[in-house]
């Protein structure tokens, strides 16, 4: 057994190396040899192979993601953009907000509870690493068919995991999504987003600068988590007298992460930290190479000083371990003692494992021998870039030609009523309270809005009432019909949701969930979605600040629906002005803002009633979305509307029913001239919101809409304890409630 040192690697150029088993392509391995001018050591091979993986290097997506930068709209709010752990936006009064969405899809299928839990843990560490205190989480989720037996395994586990971790960290869960579709059967999507708040001067970046500064690893001990690949290496270099089994599943320790949050924030407050990086995918390989390559100098690390949970780990395994709840900080030598004291106060293990050097190499030592000697930039930033072939799928035309407008429609008021009930009680449209009641949405005492509101809203400043709002949306059915416009619809909906609460949309994060990039059809969907999103962000004036790509979500040849999930962050000057969803006052007038067309492609109605997916998604009009948002924000600021609810899946009837239930008030609706009752109730035309206007404000409100050219149609009144569509049907609130609630519980409990 001999250690594969740099010297040894230089002396033994012809040693066979398991690059293929580690996921490297032949030309990628050749490139590593070229960069180093010799063969890599085992440890170097470990680092390059994880950092050049799809997950860490974005090699298939990079060429497309560039558009987010190239097309980014001018925005004064942007403080830190794409490339850091998370983007940062200015929300005024000296406050900055950081937010990001990430995926933990595959691990959550294998072990739902722990997969989802560690997904929350990972995104929260990205937020802390920016210098912010995490203030809320959101969880956009996709599962297989609601009545499939495996969904009963996956969903309760995922929900318990997200709750178990987030609740224990003290982060209110203020939003998310739950969508069922058999396309996600073997590939559930567990996306998790987090928001953090800080003062401008507290923004921290992942860089190691200042020769002589110390590199401190703190948090959990390093175990053999998530290092399947590295074990191959280890067995090459070492004899087999060690546990061959390394856990494929990581177990989260939310308590440890809570301590990590508190001690990191205390260190920030005392200005002890020069640079900081969380340990996520690729663990120390990623943290050391990114810190070093973003800094001014090099870095020297002594791997023997890493605290271990499993003393049999090899250096390759330590470098690749993905053990949770760890962070890496760069600290000036004279501040190290204070930093370690804070960690000790919080019972967090902290160890100096290296220092910043004045060279430009990342050097890693083990038992006194040098086992890594690389230019960190080549590891962190010079990974391969692919221009993968893409092709519009041959089935796309047929799918779009299969127009949902041809589907048989309800003919009588009785049939309409039946279909309304069918929609309200269908798993995708039913109340998600069985899920969201497992999440703490009160903790921290700043939650202004949470589920089932259109957007979550958090108070940032107690004195002024400054707040932020966030909404996440995505519609895989729309994106399947047309990925370009489907991605734009996701953005438009999240943007509209934020504006509906009265907040001004500022910035975007996204999580792009797709099938295999090696399939040209999937790659086309991916490219189209990004193009659509980037174009739309330009028009809406909301830059993308960061996000995440999850590829290979497919079983065999069958990919999930293309599922771009978009998060929009907004700001509101005074949370007292927020607009909730609930109809609260009898007698208030209901107005429908926007235009209703016969648009049923990809709609909830076509899915629930006809199990159909075809045609084109609703038309996108981004200028109109902008105008609608402006009107909603003005109306909120000037007290012209008391309630507002965005129209999306299920159309108008779904939105009105939800607002009625939330406020425990009925509504009487009149089908407007020029529309048939069916289209009025079920169309999913974009750019629409229903608002409840006090009679005293009616004139002022309609004048404002008229002057600015936004269609506003009076459709009814808040009244009584039934949902009535005049001349068609009446449903008591009790019937509505019974249809809407209980579906998920009945399926899962």
């Amino acid at each position, binding site marked *: 057994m001999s250690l594969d040192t740099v010297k040894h690697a230089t002396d033994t150029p012809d040693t066979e190396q398991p690059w293929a088993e580690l996921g490297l392509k032949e030309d990628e391995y050749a490139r590593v040899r070229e960069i180093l001018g010799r063969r890599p050591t085992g440890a170097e091979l470990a680092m390059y192979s994880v950092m050049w993986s799809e997950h860490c290097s974005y090699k298939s997506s990079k060429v497309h993601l560039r558009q987010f930068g190239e097309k980014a709209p001018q925005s004064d709010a942007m403080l830190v953009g794409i490339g850091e752990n998370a983007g940062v936006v200015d929300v005024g009064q000296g406050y900055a907000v950081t937010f990001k969405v990430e995926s933990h899809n595959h691990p959550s299928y294998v072990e739902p509870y722990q997969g989802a839990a560690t997904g929350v843990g990972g995104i929260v560490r990205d937020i802390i690493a920016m210098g912010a205190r995490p203030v809320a989480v959101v969880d956009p989720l996709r599962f297989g068919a609601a009545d499939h037996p495996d969904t009963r395994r996956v969903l309760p586990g995922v929900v*318990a995991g997200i*709750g*178990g971790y987030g*609740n*224990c*960290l*003290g982060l209110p869960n203020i939003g998310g999504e739950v969508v069922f579709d058999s396309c996600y059967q073997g590939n559930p999507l567990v996306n998790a987003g987090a928001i953090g708040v800080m003062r401008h001067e507290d923004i921290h970046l992942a860089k190691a600068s200042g020769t002589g500064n110390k590199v401190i690893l703190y948090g959990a001990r390093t175990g053999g988590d998530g290092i399947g690949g590295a074990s191959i290496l280890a067995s090459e270099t070492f004899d087999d007298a060690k546990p061959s089994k390394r856990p494929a599943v990581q177990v989260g*320790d*939310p*308590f*440890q992460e*809570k*301590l990590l949050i508190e001690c990191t924030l205390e260190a920030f407050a005392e200005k002890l930290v020069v640079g900081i990086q969380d340990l996520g995918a690729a663990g120390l390989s990623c943290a050391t190479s990114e810190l070093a390559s973003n800094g001014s100098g090099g870095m020297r690390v002594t791997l023997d000083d890493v605290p271990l949970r499993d003393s049999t780990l090899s250096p390759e395994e330590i470098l690749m371990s993905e053990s949770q709840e760890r962070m890496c900080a760069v600290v000036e030598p004279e501040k190290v003692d204070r930093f370690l004291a804070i960690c000790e*106060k*919080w*019972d967090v293990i902290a160890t100096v494992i290296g220092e910043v050097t004045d060279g430009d190499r990342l050097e890693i030592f083990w038992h006194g021998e040098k086992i890594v000697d690389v230019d960190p930039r080549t590891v962190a930033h010079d990974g391969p870039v692919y221009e993968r072939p893409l092709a519009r799928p041959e089935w796309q035309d047929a799918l779009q030609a299969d127009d949902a407008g041809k589907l048989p429609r309800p003919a009588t008021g009785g049939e309409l009523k039946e279909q309304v009930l069918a929609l309200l009680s269908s798993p995708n449209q039913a109340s998600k309270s069985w899920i*969201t*009641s*497992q*999440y*703490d*949405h*009160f*903790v*921290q*005492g*700043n*939650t*202004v809005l949470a589920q089932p509101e259109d957007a979550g809203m958090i*108070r940032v400043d*107690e*004195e*002024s*009432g400054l707040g932020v709002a966030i909404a996440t949306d995505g519609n895989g059915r729309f994106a399947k019909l047309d990925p370009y416009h489907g991605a734009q619809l996701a953005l438009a909906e999240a943007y509209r949701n934020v504006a509906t609460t009265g907040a001004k949309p500022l910035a975007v994060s996204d999580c792009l969930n797709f099938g295999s990039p090696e399939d040209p059809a999937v790659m086309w969907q991916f490219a189209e979605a990004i193009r659509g999103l980037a174009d739309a962000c330009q028009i809406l004036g909301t830059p993308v600040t960061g996000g995440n790509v999850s590829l290979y979500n497919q079983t065999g040849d069958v990919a999930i629906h293309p599922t771009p999930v978009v998060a929009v962050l907004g700001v509101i000057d*005074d*949370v*007292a002005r927020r607009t909730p969803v609930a109809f609260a006052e009898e007698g208030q007038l209901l107005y429908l803002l926007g235009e209703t067309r016969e648009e049923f492609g990809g709609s909830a109605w076509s899915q629930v009633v006809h199990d159909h997916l075809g045609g084109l998604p609703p038309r996108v009009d981004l200028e109109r979305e902008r105008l609608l948002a402006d009107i909603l924000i003005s109306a909120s600021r000037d007290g012209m509307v008391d309630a507002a609810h965005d129209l999306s899946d299920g159309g108008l009837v779904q939105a009105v029913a939800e607002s009625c239930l939330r406020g425990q008030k009925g509504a009487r609706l009149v089908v407007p001239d020029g529309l048939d009752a069916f289209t009025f109730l079920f169309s999913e035309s974009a750019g629409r919101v229903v608002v409840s206007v006090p009679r005293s404000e009616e004139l002022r409100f309609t004048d404002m809409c008229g002057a600015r050219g936004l269609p506003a149609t009076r459709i009814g009144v808040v009244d009584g304890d039934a949902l009535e569509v005049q001349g068609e049907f009446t449903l008591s609130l009790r019937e509505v409630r019974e249809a809407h609630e209980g579906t998920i519980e009945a399926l899962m409990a």
Partner: protein
Amino acid sequence: MTAGPTPAARSNTRVGVVTFPGSLDDRDTQRAIRLAGAEAVPLWHKDKSLQQVDAVVLPGGFSYGDYLRAGAISRFSPLMEKVIDGARAGLPVLGICNGFQVLTEAHLLPGAMLGNDHLHFICRDQKLRVENTATAWTGDYVAGQEIHIPLKNMDGRYVADSRTLDMLEAEGRVAFRYLDVNPNGSLRDIAGITNEAGNVVGLMPHPEHAVEPLVGSGRTDGLPFFTSIIKKLVSA
């Protein structure tokens, strides 16, 4: 502006809030105390002094991750020795949620807290009846008053043997009872109890999340907890 209700009384009352590792609602509790008009004094579980506070709140959260049993590890922290001595000598102590669990683990209150009978974490706006207004923390309520207070926990099922339950009932020591829905399977719908002297109170719901109209549950039904203790101490 989002200022809460005007403080009941500005006072020199100092109410300590203990932070254990994993405490979550410590800052909110401090805010509630300030809104009620008292000074909130942060206390650290490793300290050995109560800093001469007039009363102590053990806040909600997942101290030590609720590992082993909720409250079981915190109960042995250095500051808890002082809290236990103080409570026995009449110091007003309020345990909210995790704090209630710590109080039962420390045997300052009888019974124990177990996992919810439905096995899920639950977060809801819970209706309660105030059964005892003679404690240090409930004087500002009216006997029988029905209030809404957010509830959020995994281990909220109150259990005790029937002798203990009968004693609690007979002595009027059930301070709060769940109404409409028993959210966790607590015996006799018990949401909160007091010790014999009335200075130590524990409850599962979170009054600190019901002190401002704009955030949390949107109600202020929780504020009287904090004004009660101020009045009690001012008049003492």
